[in-house]
């Protein structure tokens, strides 16, 4: 009884603000005759006809595929390079200035450049997303790997845990909270780059669809595209949180227990 009450309460907290915002939008835009600010009612009415199965297949799925491939590529490269750079002081000293420079270049700038050698297909978009996403993952991994506790390092050495086992059982788990912080930052960067790269040069995808609607003065359709993007970002972040809570359950437990008894 008490449990269900608590769940309901949490649900209420989650839903309350979005509900208020939507209501305000609904009434504020009701009866609007401005072409660019159609009533929310019109947008909602347009939603099911615009986002039918055909469009989901033609626009949403390609976008999702590009995003996830680029993101996965960035994760693999970022964690691998970050572990290498974080493990060796000399490599770090060697790479740091270049990393700082590359990180400071805004990734959207790279879209025209990458287009030159990666073409305008999926490859280009995946590369753009990966190039933008890799930095937070890389830099957080470096920090996480550097911060491995010296006592744990000595423990591993004493008990003959070296080489690949050391990486798998000590370095990567120890750095995983930092790595996840980087992955989280990269997820939103990835969505932004997915849309931008599709607005530049594409024949399908969410970014392409939104630009098409806008150019064709299908303003309610454009708004539905923006809603879909928001929902996509929200869903991905929920999935991310679920994964994170699972993988880092030890970390949250450890933090809670040290908070209880300092």
């Amino acid at each position: 009884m008490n449990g269900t009450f608590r769940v309901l309460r949490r649900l209420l907290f989650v839903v309350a603000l979005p509900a208020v915002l939507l209501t305000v939008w609904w009434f504020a835009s009701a009866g609007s005759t401005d072409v660019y600010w159609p009533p929310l009612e019109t947008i909602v009415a347009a939603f099911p006809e615009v986002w039918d199965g055909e469009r989901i297949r033609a626009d949403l799925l390609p976008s999702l595929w590009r995003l996830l491939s680029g993101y996965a590529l960035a994760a693999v490269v970022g964690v691998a390079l970050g572990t290498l750079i974080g493990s060796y002081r000399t490599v770090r000293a060697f790479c740091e200035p270049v990393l700082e420079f590359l990180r400071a270049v805004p990734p959207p700038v790279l879209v025209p450049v990458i287009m030159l050698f990666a073409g305008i297909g999926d490859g280009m978009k995946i590369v753009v997303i990966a190039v933008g996403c890799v930095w937070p993952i890389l830099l957080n991994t470096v920090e996480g790997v550097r911060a491995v506790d010296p006592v744990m390092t000595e423990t591993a050495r004493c008990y003959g845990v070296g080489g690949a086992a050391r990486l798998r059982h000590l370095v990567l788990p120890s750095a995983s909270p930092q790595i996840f912080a980087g992955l989280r930052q990269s997820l939103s960067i990835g969505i932004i780059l997915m849309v931008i790269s599709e607005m530049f040069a594409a024949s399908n995808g969410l970014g392409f669809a939104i630009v098409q609607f806008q150019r064709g003065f299908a303003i309610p359709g454009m708004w539905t595209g923006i809603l879909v993007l928001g929902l996509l970002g929200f869903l991905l972040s929920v999935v991310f949180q679920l994964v994170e809570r699972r993988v880092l359950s030890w970390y949250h437990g450890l933090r809670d227990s040290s908070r209880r008894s300092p």
Partner: protein
Amino acid sequence: MLDVRGLRKVYEGSGRTVEAVRDLTFSVAAGELVCLVGPSGCGKTTLLKCMSGLLAPTGGEVLLDGRRVTGPPPGMAFVFQEYGRSLFPWMRVGQNVELPLKQKGMAKERRRALVADALESVGLADAAKAYPWQLSGGMQQRVAIARALAYEPQVLLMDEPFAAVDAQTRADLEDLVRRLWRERGITVLFVTHDIDEAVYLGERVVVLSASPTVVQEELVVDLPVERDQLNTRVQPRFAELRTRVYEQIQAAKRGSVSAAPGAPGAGVEKE
């Protein structure tokens, strides 16, 4: 079993050199329980790191079973003072104990048996599935001891393992070490800054001088093998021994190596 011969360690840092350990020679026989005690900052940690092969000595050598230690030897297990930072928090208790055995390439059944046995003998048979941070400090240190036991070392090095637990837990853990030593016949070198603990635990106490470290004195603890917290600590012999060690530590702090009575300050070297 464990021989330290003429060990010397000098740290070279930015423009200045610090001699942490000057000349240490002592040995631990197989099956012996020896306590190392010294004033704080006397280079105990340096010594242990040299002995375990984590740090290369500047001079002298450490021999384990006649073989020179150059890196962490497989026949040596270590229990650290910082139990919370020595167990991996992302692994369950059983996995923590098992990991070093996996590295040894041991078969699964043998590993299982060793883990269960080690946890059993530290009184944590039910805790295998828990995470270390779900346990109290004393229990975490028991896990670290179990990990060392399962490793089946020739020598067990313990670096002030009970310095960070409360007094009652500490008494229990001291008895645990005595019991494991007697039951399993393992060789233990126990480092502590606590004089009572050194006398209560050890069969022999090696008193170290202040840094740069040499052996101040070695002293055989002729208390009965059967010891308990209540009776052993009130025996007159216990009091004598602890007074003797205490005097030596005080002498070590003053920097007097010979510490001959009536000659205070004899052999003063430097601060």
